């Protein structure tokens, strides 16, 4: 078990080292997310609708779109210079590769969200400080589900000729439960409700996380082959 954990950690460390060297992924994800928010602010009239009602939707769309950029890079980067070949030749379990990639995608997204939330707070003029704990829980759950399914589909689509197009087409319809659930939960939290009142949504998102992490572990062997 210890060996398995260190293998997963090694893959995460590798991704972070690559990112510190190239510095192309994180900045582009963050700038893209801010741009998505900006475009939404132009397209909705904030003097008519309440920021609490449209804000969560805009925040999550920005996260999902920027996350797709990151996921697209995640395995394409491995394909360059035969990096994935090397990973698969290494004597590690395929699920360790999956967990490593998933957790590094999750970490990148969470760091980006940490920078994005203050921007969101300023642009939409909403108060996040008083309910940061439930908000953090929702963001963690939602992003976990997104990275789990996203990493699986990214490993699959990176082998296609039209990978940048196919990833969102495959990913977004499957992400509907996370998208609706997270937006709903975030909206309710901004309205000052507690998570205990919305346990059905919490349960749904947790189910999504568990189902797709286990489905990925079971099917990743078939994708990372050859």
């Amino acid at each position, binding site marked *: 078990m210890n060996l398995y954990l260190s293998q997963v950690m090694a893959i995460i460390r590798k991704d972070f080292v690559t990112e510190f060297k190239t510095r192309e992924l994180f900045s582009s994800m963050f700038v893209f997310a801010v741009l998505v928010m900006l475009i939404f602010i132009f397209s909705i009239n904030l003097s008519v609708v309440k920021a609490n009602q449209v804000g969560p939707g805009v925040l999550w769309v920005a996260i999902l779109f920027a996350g797709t950029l990151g996921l697209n890079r995640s395995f394409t980067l491995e394909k360059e210079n035969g990096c994935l070949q090397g990973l698969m030749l290494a004597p590690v379990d395929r699920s360790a590769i999956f967990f490593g990639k998933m957790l590094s995608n999750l970490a990148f997204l969470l760091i980006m969200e940490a920078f994005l939330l203050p921007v969101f707070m300023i642009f939409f003029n909403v108060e996040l400080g008083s309910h940061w704990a439930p908000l953090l829980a929702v963001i963690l759950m939602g992003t976990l589900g997104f990275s789990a*399914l996203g990493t*699986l589909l990214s490993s*699959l689509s990176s*082998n*296609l*000729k*039209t990978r940048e197009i*196919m990833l969102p*087409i*495959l990913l*977004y*319809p*499957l992400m*509907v*439960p996370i998208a*609706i*659930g997270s937006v*709903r939960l975030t909206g309710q939290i901004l309205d000052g409700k507690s998570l205990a009142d919305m346990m*059905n*949504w919490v349960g*749904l998102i947790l*189910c*999504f996380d568990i*189902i*797709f992490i286990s*489905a990925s572990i079971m*099917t990743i062997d*078939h*994708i990372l*082959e*050859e």
Partner: protein
Amino acid sequence: MSDASQETDSPGYGLMGLAGAGILAAMGAIFIYVPTEKTEGVVQRIMYFHVPSAWIAFFAFFIVFLCSILYLWKKEREWDIYAHASAEIGIVFCSLVLITGPLWAKPIWGVWWVWDARLTSTLVLWLIYVAYLMLRGQSEAGSTRAKYAAVIGIVGFLDIPLIHFSVLWWRTFHPDPKFITTQGLGTGNDASMNITLLVAVGAFTLLYFLLMSLRVRLERMKDEIDRIKKERLYSH
């Protein structure tokens, strides 16, 4: 090899006759036998196409799920063919659901579309399997394509209950199911309507199996042609 090709050449006339008779019976029941509904009028008859199509779409996607699991387990081309054929038929019937629904909704609800739970989940389902077929179209034939498609076939079906609940809690206006109710089977409708619906569902199910057998035959023929082509290519 000649035995196998003989087998693929014989069309299922029995099934074809059965499905044809079923469709004729369903048409008779829908347009002649069943009386016009009192409040909704003649437009209600579209329900006898809408509900069976929805049933076939879900059934077809369930077959995709089963065949995808069997493919990843056994790695036999046969299961890949079944999954592919079933997904195509499922998309056809799912599109029929999405077309017949608004045709009924316009006169009854006054709008083509509302963001109701069942409408939304059917649309999302349609998008998932369109993506599935696009993935098949984008990758080279072979075991890699079959594996990728199988993964999407499994993941897509596992997502259906989650999508269902998420859009259900989001909002819903769809008429409650009339046939399968909490009081038991067939208590919500008039008896003649239930019979007609059952005949239509039966006919559509036969049609599904007929289309499946034709599509599977077509795919096997393609394989056979590929095999012959390769044989000729390397024999020179």
